[in-house]
């Protein structure tokens, strides 16, 4: 299995069927997401101006998107002025080539990486491996995912689906660590010993970027473990790969996101490590710095008026943690490095709505809206989901489902047709109804009755009842005539069974 990428290999429904069967994973996820949901609500409640911050967070990003070209050129000039190099990558292949070229020019056989979902998006590890260069993940969770040849299942906690016993066995096997127990302290120490040697001996590091400030050419990485700090300070050469939407105009803007991001993602007031660097500083830190500005479908998302808001995303993962679909199906069901609600809108758009598996993702939502409420930059994820559903449906060849919906719209746009259809269904349901309910439906609708009953059509519709009502003057006694005082609480549908 590759270490990432954005192209789903299966439909959401197929992948979810597999992940839902993993009861351990579901328990791990439910525990983790429930805990962080409650913590986030507390962390957010501490700030009286949270809603204002969200509005600002959205507004700054929208302003950036409207002037993206200008800010990227400013960023490029500022990075170069401080001794850095800037590369523009149209797609994943170009970005991989640039990183591999830089590493090769230094004769590197190994590079260390600080957690960067963007490098997973471009499948950098696989690309480097083809050139004989081994990429070593330094984030603990990323390392676990890499060593187990697994895929990340969460934006922020990539190994959220793994428990400690699994990790202990993995470290014993892959790192030769003599671990006696699965105590977190022991697990962390085993990883630390392995990584420390890598930090001190590897010449080239690759990082992602949470933000980049156009006015000063400063790159920012926000993290929890300190591995990022090591990666961006110890090696001789640093290559940072960032999506073009990560640029911010000024340092003042940064202040908004450094409040929004930690509280939304880890429910912390501030994350433990926030590293900034601007170009190179002689005698201190990496002496060669490369910034790769990655498009990979983003300008097409930018060109779409409704879809554009997706690019506000600061990868906090708040939407994953509140999503009831993610909580059950898990990250792997989304088949991409971008799981959860944000992945359901970002992945298909980055793939230009051309990948049929990715195109099932906008339907991987019950549209409950929890993601929109949690999003610190107010991305209206339900709106974009619906918008994408419309575009995908419009562009694909006609199916049986399409015919069904089109017929239904025709029927429902005229009351007499609608009423006729109900009468038809009421007559036709006969053999399906047992004790007032339907327990098995044929075809596509069978997905419902596999686990749920459906009420039968009652003998009278509302409008039939309405027509049968006495005239207003007669109504005074009608209620009492039908009164059923003292009637025990009994299921309605038994009263109405046909």
């Amino acid at each position, binding site marked *: 299995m590759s270490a990432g990428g954005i192209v789903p290999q299966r439909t959401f429904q197929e992948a979810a069927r597999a992940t839902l069967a993993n009861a351990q994973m579901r328990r791990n996820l439910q525990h983790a997401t429930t805990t962080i949901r409650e913590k986030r609500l507390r962390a957010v409640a501490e700030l009286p101006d949270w809603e204002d911050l969200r509005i600002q967070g959205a507004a700054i990003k929208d302003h950036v998107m409207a002037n993206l070209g200008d800010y990227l050129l400013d960023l490029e000039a500022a990075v170069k002025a401080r001794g850095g190099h800037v590369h523009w990558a149209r797609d994943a292949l170009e970005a991989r080539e640039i990183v591999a070229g830089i590493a090769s020019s230094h004769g590197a056989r190994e590079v260390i990486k600080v957690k960067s979902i963007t490098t997973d998006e471009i499948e950098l590890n696989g690309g480097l491996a083809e050139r004989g260069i081994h990429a070593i993940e330094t984030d603990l969770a990323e390392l676990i995912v890499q060593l187990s040849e697994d895929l990340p299942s969460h934006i922020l906690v990539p190994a959220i689906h793994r428990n400690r016993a699994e990790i202990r066995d993995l470290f014993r096997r892959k790192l030769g660590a003599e671990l006696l127990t699965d105590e977190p302290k022991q697990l962390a120490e085993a990883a630390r010993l392995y990584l420390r040697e890598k930090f001190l001996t590897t010449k080239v590091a690759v990082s992602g970027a949470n933000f980049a400030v156009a006015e000063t050419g400063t790159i920012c990485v926000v993290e929890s473990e300190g591995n990022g700090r090591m990666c961006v300070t110890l090696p001789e050469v640093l290559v940072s790969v960032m999506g073009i939407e990560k640029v911010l105009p000024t340092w003042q803007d940064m202040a908004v996101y450094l409040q929004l991001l930690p509280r939304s993602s880890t429910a912390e007031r501030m994350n433990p490590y926030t590293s900034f660097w601007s170009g190179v500083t002689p005698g201190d830190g990496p002496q060669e710095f490369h910034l790769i500005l990655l498009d990979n479908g983003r300008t097409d998302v930018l060109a779409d008026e409704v879809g554009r808001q997706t690019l506000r995303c600061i990868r906090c993962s708040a939407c994953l943690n509140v999503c009831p679909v993610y909580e059950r199906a898990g990250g792997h069901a989304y088949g991409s490095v971008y799981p959860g609600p944000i992945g359901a809108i970002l992945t298909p758009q980055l793939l230009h709505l051309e990948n049929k598996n990715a195109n099932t993702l906008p339907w991987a939502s019950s549209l409950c809206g929890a993601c929109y409420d949690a999003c610190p930059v107010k991305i209206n994820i339900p*709106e974009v989901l619906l918008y994408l559903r419309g575009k995908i*449906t419009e562009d694909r060849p006609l199916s049986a489902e399409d015919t069904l919906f089109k017929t239904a719209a025709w029927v429902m746009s005229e009351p007499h047709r609608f009423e006729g259809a109900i009468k038809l269904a009421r007559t036709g349901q006969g053999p399906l109804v047992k004790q007032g*309910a339907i327990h098995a439906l044929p075809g596509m609708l069978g997905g419902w009755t596999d686990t749920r009953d459906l009420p039968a059509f009652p003998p009278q519709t509302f409008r039939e009842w309405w027509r049968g009502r006495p005239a207003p003057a007669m109504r005074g006694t009608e209620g009492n005539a039908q*009164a059923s005082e003292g009637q025990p609480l009994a299921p309605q549908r038994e009263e109405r069974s046909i």
Partner: protein
Amino acid sequence: MTIDLFITCLNDALFPRTGEATVKLLERLGHEVRFNERQTCCGQMHFNSGYQDDALRLVRHFVETFRDAEAVVAPSGSCVGMVRDLYPRAAEWAGDEELLAEVNALTPRVFELSEFLVRYLGVEDVGAYYPHRVTYHQTCHAMRVLRVGDAPLRLLKNVRGLRLVELPAVEQCCGFGGTFSVKNPETSTAMLADKVQNVLSTKAEACTAGDNSCLMHIGGGLSRLQAGTRTVHLAEILASTEGEVFA
């Protein structure tokens, strides 16, 4: 005042008692209730499934039907959510300025039942009697799209004889999501299983909500388990009196 009912296609066809209860309740409060028989469906099912052109046909039909209403009231947060939140989107995405103007003129007069009673009419005690242990499921559209807040709870707290028990994880979706329940049945079922367990943990006789679509889902799960707990629409509880039991 004169209130136009929007009974919704699901209620009309499958849950007529909810519509009957809504009529009785509003008339008991002294209002004139009308039912325009031209009405059909809000188009949510089509819009949410990606059939936006087909939904537009139903959007136009709704606007034509209720154009002159003083207030349109529906016993469904989901369908009112469609009208208030998504009708403007439907018109915008279709590039139909005229429809958008009509929609914007109409939507401030379209209400979900509980918000209409509490926020618009200022009524919290509707004189209902329902001597049962009840838990309340906050439906997603009422909670997050319409922001009805505690309006349903205020109404339930004033129902005589009713013992209201809090539902754990009340803010979580039941997993219905319209065609989601059919397109992704396994995930939907996993969500439902937790909801059903939470409902059963309250030991309530009935689980209520402002939407028969969610209740149909939760009720479908409870019925399959033969759990004994049943689902009942909020309107039916509010319409019930000592003289006439609706729910």
